[in-house]
């Protein structure tokens, strides 16, 4: 019975990946590229969540592991692929494994100082490590230096009819990463990781090998980032140090924190949303100035109202939800009304419409700030998606959860 359901899950995952590949095949190059990158971000964010959220080791150098993986795969491919006489697909899978091992070694090197450092101090060390890796690569002509390097082979196409390639492999890796983290937390072996996050002294008094746990977290987390790096190398066919700046580490960290540190569901969804949001904002139409002003006033009003409701409203949670939804709806209506009213003022009414798409990073940043104001513990906090939770939501009777972590 167990193996049937396990086989079902694996087939389901494969089917999902192939369907995604098929669907993406119909999209434009730009859109299918976003689907690939989103998959890589999910892997990065979930693997960082293992280090940062679950084990509580504040690492800010995740881009470095990604880069180590990418350049390991890139260098080996450039040097040996033509001699190996392997089919492109097998070679890429092999590179994924090698890159994972390479990045895991880098993870070990960063993991070792984490045995003595905590919190801010570890953050600084990992940040420094990330920059060191990037700058060393930038100054190594043998791997392209600042010019970057071309990588062969590129992904072979799964469906010959479509222009897309590699979507399924990227998402398979993301699903594998999610599955590994979820399995860890589901079994008793995940508890020492959470225990180390909560209290190291108490953990070791209970027989937990704190050193071992931290190093394991860094090994697994960096291995997945490295494998993602290998896929990036073969997808892009080109690598350059500018692809792995500090900014990347910060974005991935933001995904983890915003999703809710420790929640796998949170980091997965946050990765997808935060990756797509700035891209989708490119499509915003020009907005008349009056509506922009209305939107700003409306947004601030909604956030202040929601914050006050969360903090000060004493009622049942369903009353609170209704109040929040009504408040938000009112805010939107008021914002739209303001847009029409302000049009009457000549200086505002006659001004040229604003290209809202140019403001996309401002909107993105403000959204992050508002979210953190309203929900500092992250959208999912410590919670995970589970079927019993869905059933509860649908109003069925409480079902005992199978997971250890609730």
């Amino acid at each position, binding site marked *: 019975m167990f193996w049937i359901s396990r086989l079902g899950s694996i087939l389901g995952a494969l089917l999902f990946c192939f369907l995604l590949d098929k669907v993406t095949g119909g999209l434009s190059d730009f859109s299918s590229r976003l689907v690939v990158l989103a998959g890589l971000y999910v892997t990065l964010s979930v693997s960082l969540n293992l280090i940062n959220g679950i084990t509580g080791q504040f690492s800010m150098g995740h881009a470095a592991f990604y880069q180590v993986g990418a350049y390991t795969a890139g260098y080996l491919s450039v040097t040996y692929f033509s001699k190996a006489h392997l089919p492109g697909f097998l070679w890429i899978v092999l590179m994924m494994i090698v890159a994972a091992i390479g990045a895991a070694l880098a993870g070990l090197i960063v993991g070792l100082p984490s045995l003595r450092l905590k919190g801010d101090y570890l953050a600084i060390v990992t940040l420094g490590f990330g920059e060191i890796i990037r700058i060393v690569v930038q100054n190594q002509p043998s791997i392209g230096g600042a010019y970057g390097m071309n990588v062969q082979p590129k992904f072979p196409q799964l469906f010959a009819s479509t222009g897309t390639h590699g979507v399924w492999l990227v998402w398979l890796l993301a699903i594998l990463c999610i599955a590994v983290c979820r399995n*860890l937390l589901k079994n*008793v072996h995940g*508890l*020492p990781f959470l225990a180390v996050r909560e*209290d190291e002294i108490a953990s*070791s008094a*209970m*027989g937990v090998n704190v050193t071992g746990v931290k190093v394991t977290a860094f090994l697994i987390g960096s291995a997945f980032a490295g494998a993602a790096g290998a896929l990036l190398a073969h997808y892009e066919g080109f690598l350059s140090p500018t692809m792995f700046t500090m900014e990347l580490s910060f974005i991935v960290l933001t995904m983890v924190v915003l999703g809710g540190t420790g929640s796998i569901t949170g980091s997965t969804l946050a990765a997808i949303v935060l990756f797509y949001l700035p891209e989708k904002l490119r499509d915003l139409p020009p907005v008349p100035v009056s509506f922009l002003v209305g939107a700003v006033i409306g947004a601030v009003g909604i956030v202040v109202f929601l914050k006050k409701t969360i903090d000060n409203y004493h009622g049942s949670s369903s009353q609170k939800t209704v109040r929040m939804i009504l408040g938000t709806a009112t805010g939107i209506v008021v914002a739209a009304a303001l847009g029409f009213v302000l049009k009457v003022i000549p200086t505002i009414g006659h001004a040229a419409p604003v290209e809202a798409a140019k403001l996309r990073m401002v909107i993105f940043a403000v959204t992050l700030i508002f979210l953190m104001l309203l929900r500092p513990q992250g959208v999912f906090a410590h919670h995970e998606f589970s079927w019993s939770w869905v059933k509860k939501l649908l109003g069925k009777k409480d079902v005992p959860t199978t997971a*250890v972590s609730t």
Partner: protein
Amino acid sequence: MSLLTLKDATIRFGGLVAVNKVNFEIETGDLFGLIGPNGAGKTTCFNLITGVYTPTSGHILFNGRPIGGTPPNKIAKLGICRTFQNIRLFGALSCLENVMVGAYLRHRTGLWTALSDIPPAIKETRALKEEAMRLLEVVNLEDVANARSADLSYGSQRRLEIARAMATQPKLLLLDEPAAGMNPQEKAELMETVRRIRDDHQKTVLLIEHDMRFVMGLCEKIVVLDHGEEIASGPPDAIRNDPKVIAAYLGEAV
């Protein structure tokens, strides 16, 4: 052979001798008390036994084997487990999970079985969960098994710490001020629990406590420390009447 032996155990921090040549022996099945005024070195003694500190000189023997300087996680595996004076629970985890961390020490399946979530790991998780649930029953916390441990009342948190330590199945259980902050009713219940742990679960217990009714009513042997030195040891009645202990700690009856 005694279960735990301290032979001239000493630790200095710079010029301060926190524990100075302390000697005592705990036999299997003892309910042993460690008392003394604040700053006498009681908790430091615990830290020496559990490997947090390495003794500067002297020996600590557990089952005849020297354990001074062994790291805490290995001490726990040898069969000594403790609770903390300032409660150190895993706050964000549920009560059940807290106890399961203690039970995890006896896991047999490897990390790979857990990462791939195959039956050996699942079965082990289920077994340890049931075991943890039974321990929660011992300390009367089965009703709050799924509550966050940080949300518990002070007295319940102290009992949860005992259950967590019990989950490692120690031969010797060290309790650091288990009754601190409890009301008389809770203290009476705790005395009953500790006695049950010794009698029904066959544990040897060493405890630090300031409540004399608790210590005298529970322990069969007591060691008194003052300024890092052992000033008396023996059964409760002898301690109660010992002039040195009265001068240093208990005070005259009014």
